[in-house]
């Protein structure tokens, strides 16, 4: 099938999509956007978190056909050219990035949190990021990063 979708503000088209493909597969393998990650492909780890019409979703759980004529924003669409989004900047600065495989999903989840709650408390940050697994950091520096990004807004 053919899928038409707006990705990061650009009209995109994917051809020969098999009906069983996920949005994640289409982004990664057909649209050249591998930033959203394939850590579990079962909706448990949050590494593939993207905005679908401004709502964060696990791209691995969205069938490709469901995004027809809708808007997707991925981690690749957060920076403004060379200028990182403040959340991205804070993740690098705070040491919240080690292997970085969870990072794209966490950056999108934190970006969404700060849009909704500009000054979140620690319990609010923890609750908002509870769907994103990280295996390297123990999360302390991820919390630092979100606090840092919030302080700069």
């Amino acid at each position, binding site marked *: 099938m053919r899928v038409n979708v707006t990705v990061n503000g650009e009209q995109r088209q994917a051809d020969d999509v098999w009906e069983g493909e996920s949005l994640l597969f289409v982004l990664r393998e057909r649209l050249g956007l591998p930033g959203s990650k394939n850590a579990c492909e079962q909706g448990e780890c949050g590494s593939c978190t993207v905005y679908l019409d401004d709502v964060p979703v696990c791209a691995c759980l969205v069938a490709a056909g469901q995004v027809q004529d809708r808007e997707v924003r991925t981690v690749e669409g957060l920076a403004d050219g060379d200028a990182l989004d403040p959340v991205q900047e804070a993740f*690098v600065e705070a040491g919240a990035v080690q292997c970085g495989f969870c990072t794209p999903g966490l950056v999108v989840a934190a970006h969404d949190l700060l849009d909704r709650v500009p000054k979140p408390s620690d319990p609010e940050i923890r609750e908002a990021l509870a769907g994103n697994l990280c295996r390297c950091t123990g999360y302390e520096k991820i919390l630092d990063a979100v606090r840092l990004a919030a302080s700069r807004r």
Partner: protein
Amino acid sequence: MTLTPAELTSAVSGGIGTSPQRPDGNLKVRGEFAYASDLWHEDMIWGATLRSPHPYARITSVDITEALKVPGVYAVLTHSDVPGRNLYGLEHKDQPVLAVDVVRYQGEPIALVGADHPETALRAMKKIVVTYDVLDPVVDMETAADDTPLHPGGNLVRHVPIRRGSQDVTADVVVTGRYEVGMQDQAFLGPESGLAVPAEDGSVDLYIATQWLHVDRDQIAAALGLPQEQVRLTLSGVGGAFGGREDLSMQVHACLLALHTGKPVKMVYNREESFYGHVHRHPAVLYYEHGADRTGKLVYVRTRMYLDGGAYASSTPAVVANAATLGVGPYEVDNVTVDAYGLYTNNPPCGAMRGFGAVQAGFAYESQMDKLAEALGMSPVDVRIRNAMTEGSVMPTGQVVDSAAPVAQLLKLVQDKPLPAGTSSDIRELPGGVSNTTHGEGVVRGVGYAVGIKNICFSEGYDDYSTARVRVSMVNGELAAAVHTAACEVGQGLVTIMQQIVRTELGIERVTVLPMDTTIGNGGSTSASRQTYVTGGAVKAACALVRARLDGRTDIGDEVIDETTEWRHRATEALDPVTGQGNAHVQYGFAAHRAVVDVDVDLGLVRVVALDCAQDVGKALNPQAVVGQIQGGSAQGLGLAVMEEIQTSGGKVRNPSFTDYLIPTVLDMPPMSIDVLELADPHAPYGIRGVGEPPTISSTPAIVAAIRAATGLALTRVPVRPEHLTGT
């Protein structure tokens, strides 16, 4: 003007002792860093692996006829398509690339499919017909040695005995215990992946997520029947490792498919396949007897431990040696009896995971120290300090600890930290959290301590070295440096450390880290907490050669200074096979934890409220990264304490998913306050002491001690499950 290294250091920022940003950080937060599973090649096809559903079976036939007929399929391969040696392994070559006539674990690879789409490959795989004669699996590590032999030579992979001092001395106070450690998974987030690209001359390039390029290369070349120079590896982005990428997974398979089809082949495991595709932490059963005098001074420690290596040896021999040599912990004990056994079974293969044998022993000996404290009426910290080793102490192997061993100091540091406030009234901070299972009723608090010891770098006489190349030239009128190694960056931050070392040694701020590949010599494994030590040492040594040629010049015109050198740490010795005596280790690392937990005793739910750590790192080359390692290692220890276990039944994995294999989320992790000591080791570059593993060892027993303190339960097994707490 000629500057000394110290003067040069002050001239540039981002040298050692500071925390500059990772060179790959911006790419990673933008989603533009290329991990192995992100790779793409014009005309590439997808590989898939058919695996055994049985833990132990004889293969009576394999029929690929129908699979080959599926449109879009380029190749279906079995063991007869392996042109070279169909056996590989880190220490013993005992594991088939593709099974021949027997499978020894559930998930063992039998056949490969190459196809135009991952779904085509899966469909074709289902058309491969394998018939089995299913056999009774060997699953009990304690009886495996006398059970059906799974390999020629039987099921005992290695026995490491240690005999020190009197073997029959008695003591006033004796405590005994039997402890179990479940099978933990590395659960790195980036699944096993790679891209193999065939060349016209019959050689192959592999872009791969691994921990050790050269040992991968050697094993791949042997399996492909190619000379080593015809197998070229380049490290791709690696999504975590923690030991789980030290063994081969899809490396040979992708190369076989690529050479067979003449097309680039991408292989990416999904999460379930990842659970079958890499080795895990050895489950263990450990019997201990500690004898002490009435002042709490240890008189003897005797232990017998079993480590389940599963179907293939992997790094079991080295894991067993670690468990044995570190088996009494960071304590002075004159009389020691250790018998550590690594066994073959039909359980999933086990090998390297952060802590590597020291974790299993650590849970047991620290549980014993708490039991001893209770028997003596002493505090857990006091009994540990009473026996704490120091610089100059003698290990059970007879090796003298010849650099800082601040065991008592680390314990005091965590003991003196402020305790968290009492049990919270916010349900988000109670056991069960937002599940709203308690408002504080049935919740009890406990505090526990533990300390651990880990060997750093490779041991037992292994020639452990790394190779580094540093090149300096003029760029835009300034000196610029490039550093090249084959040492794998897996997330820990070696790329940053190498830049920092070059800046400090050469006073050159602009340092590029070249891709890690096999065009340069061996970098050794990214394991045993060794890369900053050994590859850091090699980069430092290469810089010294460059610095001599620079001779203080800040303008070298068109000249290019390019130096490559190997660097090795001081030699170690083999263990005596009868007494276990010998200077087997290079360096020891120490960490201590204090855990505070709240336990809902009605539901068996645990919330770790605080998990503070003190660790000696010799010298913190990058303080931010050091703390990140300690916090990350502590988190993996928390996972083993209260949630993480690959559960097997009759050799079959029951929970190969992130739905059923739980790793800590941000809600499970408490704040972690970290104290970093910098007591330089005079034998190591810059005095550093490996950082990654020690915190993983003491975290688990500290948490379990806290749960015991809260509940009064014995808790001899990790992970602690709700039913262990409720008795249901």
